[in-house]
C-alpha cells in the first residue's frame, strides 16, 4: 500500500501524518506541492494540517490551486482515497472534493485541546474499525473549523450517512456538530480533528490508530 503525503509551504503535520501511515503498514512517499503528478501506484493521498500559504485569502484556498491539486482531484475522480486533516480538510473543501466550508470558530478563538468525538458511521474504510456511536478522544487545533453548508446539502449528507465524525459536545459552531465528512463514494474523508496525533500511547492516546489501520487494512484486501 502506498500513501502520498503532500507538503505545502506552511504545512506542519505532514511528518506526523507520514508516520501514522507508516505505522499502519503503508509505504509513504512525500510529495511537494509544486509537483504536478503523484508517484505511480499511490493508493491514498494525505493532505496534512498546518497553515498552507499562511492561510492567506481563506484557509486552504491557495493550496487548492497549487500544481499538485489537479493530480489529487484526478486521483479522487478515479476512485482513489484522499484523507484531509485540519488544514487538509479546508483544502479539500476549497477544491470542491468535499461539500461545505470551514468558517471562523463561533467563539472566535483558536481551539487547541483534546475533544471527544462520536463515530457517526462505520460505513467507510476509514471508520470501519470503530463501533458506531463509539466515543474517541482526538486533539483539535484550529481557528477555522466551523463547518458550514447549505440546508439542502446538510440534509443530503445526513441522509446518505456521510457524516464520519461529530463533536460529542458543540465545539466551534459546526452545523450538526460535524467534525468530518465523506465524499459520495466514501473514499474522500475530511476532518478537523487530528487522528495522526494519537497513534501511540506515548501520545497520550491511540484512538487515531484505528483509522489508519482500518484504511490500510481495507486497501490491502482490495
Amino acid at each position: 500500500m502506498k500513501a502520498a503525503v503532500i507538503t505545502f509551504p506552511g504545512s506542519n503535520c505532514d511528518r506526523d501524518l507520514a508516520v501514522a501511515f507508516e505505522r499502519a503498514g503503508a509505504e509513504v512517499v512525500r510529495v511537494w506541492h509544486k509537483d504536478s503528478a503523484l508517484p505511480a501506484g499511490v493508493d491514498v493521498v494525505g493532505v496534512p494540517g498546518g497553515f498552507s500559504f499562511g492561510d492567506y485569502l481563506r484557509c486552504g484556498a491557495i493550496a487548492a490551486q497549487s500544481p499538485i491539486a489537479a493530480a489529487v482531484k484526478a486521483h479522487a475522480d478515479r476512485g482513489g482515497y484522499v484523507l484531509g486533516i485540519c488544514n487538509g480538510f479546508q483544502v479539500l473543501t476549497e477544491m470542491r472534493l468535499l461539500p461545505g466550508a470551514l468558517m471562523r470558530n463561533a467563539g472566535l478563538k483558536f481551539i487547541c485541546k483534546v475533544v471527544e468525538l462520536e463515530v457517526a458511521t462505520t460505513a467507510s474504510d476509514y471508520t470501519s474499525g470503530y463501533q458506531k456511536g463509539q466515543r474517541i478522544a482526538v486533539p483539535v487545533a484550529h481557528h477555522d473549523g466551523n463547518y458550514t453548508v447549505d440546508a439542502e446539502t446538510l440534509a443530503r449528507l445526513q441522509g446518505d450517512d456521510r457524516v464520519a465524525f461529530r463533536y460529542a459536545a458543540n465545539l466551534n459552531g459546526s452545523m450538526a456538530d460535524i467534525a468530518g465528512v465523506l465524499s459520495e463514494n466514501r473514499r474522500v474523508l475530511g476532518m478537523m480533528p487530528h487522528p495522526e496525533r494519537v497513534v501511540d500511547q506515548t501520545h497520550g492516546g491511540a484512538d487515531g490508530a484505528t483509522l489508519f489501520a482500518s484504511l490500510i487494512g481495507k486497501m490491502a484486501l482490495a
Partner: protein
Amino acid sequence: MKARVTVMLKTGVLDVQGEAVRRALGTLGFEGVEAVRQGKVIELDLAATDRAAAETEVKAMCEKLLANTVIEKYSVEMV
C-alpha cells in the same frame, strides 16, 4: 485599469466576526447598530484595456479563487 472586488458572506450565513464587532461597538457606547457584516475588498491593477473583457476576466478570478461561492458572494467594480 483597476478593478475593485468586494467579497461578502452570503445572506443567511452567520458572520461571527461581524457579530463580535457589533457587540464591541455597543460596548463602546455606539447605540443602534443593528447588524454588522464583515467582508473584504480586493483591488487589482490590470494591464487590460478592454473594460468589458477585463470585467469578465475578474469575475472568472472571483469564481475560481477570490471568493468561495459556497459561503460568499462577490461584486466587481471597474474603476
